[in-house]
């Protein structure tokens, strides 16, 4: 195989997993230096350089403003996006606006970093794990992304990989990866509903598998619903409990809260298999006298379910929404796949069973199945698995507008990709040398409702009276979901030069520079 080994990566909001296909054809989940299968997607920027993964979690206690978690949520997002505004209020670190309107992270005064670079550090860590496993360089990867990612977010993910020194073989949508990892390609034709409840997000997708062809029909989700929210709800209740039993308020003590959170998380995991457990924090707080206060409490499963019930109720609308999008009834769903660690919680299973009207399939490894799917995709692209084809549709429409006019839809949402459409526009003035246009993602005629992807100009037009020069603009979405542009002069058939005036995301040169920097740093 040319150019090094390839690895399948599930780049998650809170945890990332890497998997490869072994020589015997079985998927293998790579383990971190600590022996865990999941690498927390956390980067702690210390004075001695970045710390990634499990050890970076300590940074959440010591310096929450330079410990970046959930950078995936910021990838390829505009700073003025309502979701980013919401995040900016709740995240312990500061967000700032990049010159081109993207969201960046303010680490210290005067030092900003793009989410791409943060994700690149996580990816590089996974790459190191894979290299340790193979004993060979790893240069290529299949990376999973949420199915609803827009063009800018896809590009940002690719940039992050490039900075980490990984060429992206394919961006694979997470529900497809989950179905693939579940082994859907080996089974009969089936209509799946994939529910992915991870640490930070809930994603819901309808995936049809027909004769080895995978098709994602609809995706919905709740970007602020996940295991972390359940932990937070538990901590809030425990803080109240501490106040009543111990008579002290620890709600402002970050260290105590963090210890409580870790204990609550452990208890939550135990309660997935047993109905009661004991929550024990040996050193909750240290009193001024130097005495440690110990906190211990029996916890029943129904208690934690009660605490998280407002969250669990939010599982239903996205499932309903996905069915509605695909104009399906819930009886049409033939199998429900549960993905993500949170789906181990019995209450989550119950709630999803209620919403879908059928008992979900139990997966052995809900946390890892997406990464397994990514590894299988690597094998598929290398030709070791045959007869499987993944069909993707455009998650959003693409529109263009010229000279500040209305946006005009060029590629409709749900067009099967790869695809190409074109628009023709004429010059408006005599001897007009260039035509500028804007590219938008979204289908609304009003620019404000769409995501601005970039502004471009067709330059060096031939001299002619107004309207005599007709420009044929071709928009291509390639197999990866990346957007390409091409322009032709309609009368002569000559290729025209395109000039990029503005575009979202990192510039090509910056990506290359960052990749070099990271490769040189230890």
């Amino acid at each position: 195989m040319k150019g090094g080994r390839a690895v399948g990566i599930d780049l998650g909001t809170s945890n990332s997993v890497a998997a490869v296909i072994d020589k015997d054809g079985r998927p293998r989940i790579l383990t971190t230096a600590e022996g865990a299968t999941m690498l927390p997607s956390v980067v702690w920027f210390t004075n001695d350089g970045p710390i990634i993964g499990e050890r970076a979690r300590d940074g959440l206690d010591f310096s929450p403003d330079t410990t970046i978690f959930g950078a995936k949520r910021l990838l390829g997002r505009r700073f003025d996006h309502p979701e980013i505004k919401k995040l900016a209020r709740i995240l312990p670190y500061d967000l700032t606006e990049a010159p081109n309107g993207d969201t960046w992270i303010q680490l210290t005064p005067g030092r900003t970093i793009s989410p791409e670079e943060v994700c690149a550090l996580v990816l590089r860590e996974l790459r190191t794990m894979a290299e340790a496993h193979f004993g060979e360089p790893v240069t290529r990867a299949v990376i999973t992304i949420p199915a609803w990612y827009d063009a800018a977010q896809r590009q940002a993910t690719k940039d992050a990989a490039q900075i980490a020194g990984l060429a992206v073989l394919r961006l694979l949508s997470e529900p497809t990866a989950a179905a693939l990892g579940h082994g859907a390609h080996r089974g009969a034709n089936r209509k799946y509903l994939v529910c992915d409840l991870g640490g930070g997000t809930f994603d819901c997708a309808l995936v049809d598998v027909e004769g080895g062809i995978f098709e994602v029909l609809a995706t919905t989700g709740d970007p602020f619903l996940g295991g972390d929210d359940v932990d937070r709800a538990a901590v809030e209740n425990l803080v109240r409990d501490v106040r009543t039993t111990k008579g002290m308020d620890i709600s402002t003590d970050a260290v105590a809260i963090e210890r409580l959170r870790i204990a609550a998380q452990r208890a939550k995991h135990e309660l997935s298999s047993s109905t009661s457990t004991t929550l024990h924090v040996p050193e909750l707080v240290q009193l001024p006298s130097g005495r440690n206060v110990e906190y211990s409490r029996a916890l029943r499963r129904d208690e934690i379910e009660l605490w998280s019930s407002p969250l669990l109720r939010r599982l239903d609308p996205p499932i309903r929404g996905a069915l509605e999008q695909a104009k399906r009834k819930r009886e049409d769903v033939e199998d429900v796949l549960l993905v993500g660690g949170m789906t181990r919680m019995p209450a989550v299973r119950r709630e999803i069973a209620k919403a879908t009207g059928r008992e979900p399939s139990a997966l052995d490894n809900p946390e890892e199945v997406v990464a397994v799917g990514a590894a299988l995709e690597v094998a598929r692209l290398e030709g070791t698995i045959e007869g499987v084809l993944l069909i993707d549709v455009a998650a959003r429409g693409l529109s263009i507008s010229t000279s500040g006019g209305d946006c005009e839809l060029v590629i409709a949402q749900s067009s099967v990709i790869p695809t190409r459409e074109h628009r023709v526009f004429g010059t408006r003035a005599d001897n007009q040398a260039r035509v500028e246009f804007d590219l938008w993602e979204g289908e609304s005629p009003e620019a404000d409702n769409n995501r601005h992807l970039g502004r471009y100009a067709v330059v060096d037009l031939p001299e002619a009276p107004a309207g005599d020069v007709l420009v044929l603009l071709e928009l291509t979405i390639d197999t990866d979901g990346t957007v390409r542009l091409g322009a032709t002069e309609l009368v002569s058939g000559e290729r025209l030069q395109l000039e990029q005036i503005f575009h979202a995301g990192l510039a090509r040169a910056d990506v290359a520079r960052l990749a070099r920097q990271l490769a040189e740093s230890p």
Partner: protein
Amino acid sequence: MAAGRTLHVRCATWEQVDAFHTRKLRRGKLLSMKVPFQTQNGAQVTLGLELPNGVVVAIDGNVLKASPIEGDSKTWIEVELVGFTEEVLARLRSMAKGAEQIVKPAPAPPPPPPSKPRVATSSNVVEQPSDERALFQQLTGELRRLRQLAVHEVLGVSRDADAETVRVAWMGLVRRHHPDLVARHNAPAITHLAEELTILLNRAYDRLRVALVAEGRATTIGSTLQHPSGWLVGFEDLSSVDGSPVKPRSASGSRPGIQGTPVPAPAAPAVTNANAAPTTPPSNVQGGEAFEARARAMLLEGDANTAQEVLAAALCVYPRSRPLRSLYYVASALAAIYKGEMMLATSQLETALAHYNECNEAATILEEIRKHGHVRVDEIKGIFR
């Protein structure tokens, strides 16, 4: 076969083209060759002469002599190329000189539909050649062939195929051509070809399902279906189906619209001899009266944009209907007039006439524009009645 066969002759260099008419042809008209099918005296054949610049010149001929070869399914035939006129010869020569700028929009009956509409199913997955060179050539040939076809022919289904047939055909073809299937070759050129092929297939599929929904024959196929507003009718169609076989002469040189000059890219235009087409060309196929009536009603109300969408959908189903096509351009011209883009409107109207000479609406509006420099759409709307 009454419709006659198409023989494809590819000339890779201009020397070969020259050799074709100076050495291969006897008495300027007769050509002998071995063909892999049975035929008989008097049968009609069409010779597709592919030039190095990608232009295909269709030349009609009759089989004069057919002698089967023993123990073989092949036949020696002698063909009289009745369509190989002085005019064609002159065009070949001037093109060879590289000075060729075809002045007239060569009327081109659309290429004959594939002799066997393939309904691809999962069972007939064709093995791809393992040799990269052979694969490259196979894909190039396939791409060139598909680019000349209407959307339903690309998928190998009939014009009135239902949703299920369309889907099955599309899936079967995608399963053959998807770029992922050749990813293991690690050859960018092959991946690119496969991607181009898949783009063609996907577009054909998307358009057919939009048309099916517009016709009310399908509600949802796949996921949500939103119609792209007023896309231009296939670029390939522009260059290959222009002109009107009804009055080929009148078109020559008199319409300097965008149709006046052939557009070499991206499709290989099929330039066909004007005197040819002794068989009934499928370009006379009419249909879509219901669409036309709806569109006219909309134009009458001044809703040019919606009319354009309706016609665009109709053209997916009836890609060869010249009245529909010309009406589409009239609608888009009206939309341009509303926006005040008179130049664009004029060229759209000229295009309409280039497609269909008898499009009175286009002629009327165009005359109005030429006389007054502008046109009041409200005053002339009546012509759509």
